């Protein structure tokens, strides 16, 4: 048995919280966690947000983000407890023995400095390599990670390369000093699905070729299954289950792990299209001051009480389509018909009735609500605005809506800050429903939520569709969501509708190359999936 490279025992982590209107007090966010990482092995840390996985990852570098304090236990790196070490020794460890890859490379690179300078900074600063040796190693790593122009990409500034490329550069930055351990903190979460798969493969190969050990932190079990040897499932700062990747995926023991493995349990019978309630015909649109079309000749229909899923990667024009339909961006050509009448292209000239029947729900429930208004005020506003409800009548209707979104009594007087992410999104749904709309445009409404919470929101939306007979235009990049809830699907790529039809038509082969790429890129909870997909690809991903 080899000695562990990283040995964590009884790790407790605390933080001081400053709740509004209360005295600051200390809370514990990680309650005594034990684990080992052996040299050259990859341990996956998995859990929902708030599980403490990033906090634990950073603890291996004796770093507490924000006001986080490492309060008890031991973290031994190469046999030395870093929690007891003086700051001077910790600095020698950071960037030399243990390095870090963050979720957003775009934010983690200094915008004012060239990439090369940042990639070699730790290796040179820690005295591991001379400047020229480090540069040579960086170019080797750029090549290994599949970056274009590896000799010159280091001279670029972070804003001059794409998100997927920057994430690879960040991996090069972490591997450059030849560390013993790399902490990967959700390194592919912010990327498009087709880009994620390339970066994932690059990271996996780099780990294998350099023989480095890794902590791989993610909320996506299917992703972690592709790269790790062992998996630890965390919840509320405690270990739920620990085992080999094979065991966690194929034979989970704990109920929570089972729920994670079998997430997206929704079944939805596809409905056949009827006379459409919304008709989008040959829409072409561009943003002011630009000279290229974001949408080219887009045509889709939505049947009453059904769901059209618009799926595509970032930049495919799916949110722009929502802006055109709501009148926020008048199109340069094309026509929109809603409930038999032609909609005026710009929002201010639309009738109250048109505004009422077409509602929107956004990705960031946080920013879509006024933080100084109570839930009751937020939901009550459309009731006053569209129906002139007042007093007891309004209160009664607000409570009905709250019951519909399964929040019940006592929520009327709460402020958004007092709600969880899922509850906030439910309030946004209630606000949209208050207008008794015919169509709700849902723009990535579950993307910012944890899988189990997102699942609850989707179930609620489907249930409400049955009760209220409302149609959804569901914008998402997540194909699993699409499969779960849609009646028809439009696949968008570079501003065009690539594939369009009922769910079964779109998801039945033969596929066009792009749809094939998109569908095959969705991580599956299966060992060896990554290699199979890469081997069978027909086209390169766009954002790589």
């Amino acid at each position, binding site marked *: 048995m080899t000695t562990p490279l990283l040995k964590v025992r009884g790790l407790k982590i605390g933080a001081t919280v400053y709740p509004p209107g209360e005295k600051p007090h200390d809370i514990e966010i990680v309650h005594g966690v034990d684990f080992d990482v052996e040299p050259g092995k990859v341990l996956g840390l998995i859990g929902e947000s708030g599980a403490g996985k990033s906090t634990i990852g950073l603890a291996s570098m004796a770093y507490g983000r924000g006001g986080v304090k490492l309060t008890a236990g031991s973290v031994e790196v190469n046999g030395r407890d870093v929690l007891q070490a003086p700051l001077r020794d910790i600095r020698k460890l*950071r960037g030399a023995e243990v*390095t870090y890859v*963050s979720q957003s490379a775009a*934010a*983690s690179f*200094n915008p*004012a400095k060239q990439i090369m300078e*940042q990639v070699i*900074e730790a290796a040179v600063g820690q005295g591991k390599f001379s400047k020229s040796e480090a540069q040579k190693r960086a170019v080797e790593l750029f090549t290994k990670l599949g970056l274009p122009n590896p000799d010159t990409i280091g001279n670029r500034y972070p804003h*001059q390369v794409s998100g997927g490329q920057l994430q690879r550069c960040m991996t090069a930055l972490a591997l450059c000093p030849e560390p013993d351990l790399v902490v990967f903190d959700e390194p592919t979460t912010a990327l498009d699905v087709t880009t994620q798969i390339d970066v994932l493969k690059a990271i996996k190969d780099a780990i294998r070729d350099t023989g480095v050990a890794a902590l791989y932190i993610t909320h996506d079990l299917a992703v972690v299954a592709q790269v790790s040897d062992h998996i630890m499932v965390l919840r509320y700062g405690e270990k739920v289950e620990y085992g080999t990747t094979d065991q966690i995926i194929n034979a989970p023991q704990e109920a929570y792990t089972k729920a994670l493995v079998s997430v997206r349990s929704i079944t939805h019978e596809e409905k056949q299209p009827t006379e459409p309630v919304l008709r989008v015909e040959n829409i072409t649109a561009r943003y002011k001051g630009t000279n290229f079309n974001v949408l080219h000749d887009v045509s889709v229909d939505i049947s009453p009480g059904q769901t059209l899923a618009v799926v595509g990667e970032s930049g495919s024009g799916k949110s722009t389509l929502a802006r055109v339909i709501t009148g926020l961006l008048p199109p340069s050509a094309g026509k929109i018909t809603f409930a038999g009448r032609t909609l005026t292209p710009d929002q201010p000239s639309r009738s109250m009735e048109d505004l009422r029947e077409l509602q929107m729900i956004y990705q960031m429930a946080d920013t879509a609500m006024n933080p100084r208004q109570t839930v009751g005020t937020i939901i009550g506003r459309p009731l006053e605005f569209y129906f002139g409800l007042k007093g007891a009548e309004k209160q009664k209707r607000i409570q009905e809506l709250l019951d519909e979104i399964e929040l019940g009594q006592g929520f009327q007087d709460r402020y958004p800050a007092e709600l969880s992410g899922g509850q906030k999104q439910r309030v946004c749904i209630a606000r949209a429903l208050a207008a008794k709309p015919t169509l709700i445009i849902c723009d990535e409404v579950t993307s910012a939520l944890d899988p189990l919470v997102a699942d609850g929101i989707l179930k609620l939306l489907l249930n409400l569709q049955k009760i209220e007979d409302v149609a959804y235009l569901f914008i998402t990049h997540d194909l699993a969501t699409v499969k779960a809830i849609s009646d028809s699907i439009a696949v968008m790529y570079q501003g065009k509708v690539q594939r369009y039809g009922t769910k079964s038509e779109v998801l039945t082969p033969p596929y066009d190359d792009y749809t094939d790429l998109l569908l095959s890129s969705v991580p599956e909870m299966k060992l060896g999936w990554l290699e199979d997909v890469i081997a069978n690809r027909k086209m390169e991903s766009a954002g790589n």
Partner: protein
Amino acid sequence: MHPILKLVAERLALGVLLLFAASALIFGLTEILPGDAAQAILGQSATPESLANLREEMGLNRPALTRYFEWLGGIVTGDMGVALTNKLPIGEQIARRMSSTLFLAFWAAIISVPLAILLGLIAVRYQNRWPDKLISGITLASISLPEFMIAYILVFFFAVKLFWAPSFASISPGMPLLEQLHAISLPVAVLTMVVLAHMMRMTRAAILNVMQSAYIETAELKGLTTFKVIYRHAFPNAIAPIVNVVMINLAYLVVGVVVVEVVFAYPGMGQYLVDAVVKRDVPVVLACGVIFAAVYIILNIVADVVSILANPRLRHPK
């Protein structure tokens, strides 16, 4: 055209436009003031006939717009006219006075700007600890005291009690540099204390703002010392706001020195302007006003251009 050149050209064009607007405003304000140059020359007891004659002679009867463009034409061609009181050409006077003022401002800037930035960096390094509080306390105290108060306190200790520096900052063209510096040491000290706090606090705030960024965490996780994190990673991204406040303070060093120059009887622009106002020498006041406006506008253009150059997205487009 490179986007930077375009942005810089825009700023320059805007600056010129602004300068014209400022000149019109200054001219207009002196027109609104009661009395005119003829009244000022002849005094209160002048007869209406002599006033009318002089006005005719000086061309003051013509429409204001004509006189404005005449005056503007003179300024643009470098002719600032003649002072009413001593009939000396204003241009020569201003050239001499301005060089004195710039000399003072230059040395005050050389000391205060690097000192302010260094103190700002130290304050960030020891944020909320005693060095930060000490620096903030001292600079705040010095900005809170009126300039003349600081000036007289310094004169009292360093000139009257200790005889280290002269209380009158008189310099003449033939003096060796060291003697000149000795002569202006007290006014430089006063100016430094006045502008230090503003620049230091802005440096501190701008860097602290950048310190929230994710790339600062990256730098910390590379094992860099806190000071290296601050000056290598935070400072380059805080240059734009810092340069802006530095330029406003440099402008103040040129334009706002009136009190200090008067206290130390220093022969600069401030003295000249105060004398002219006292003697109602309108052409001199006009010329000084335009020069001061130009200094403000030029320094602000410099700040804008440096901010543009400090932005890597503009410097290195995709």
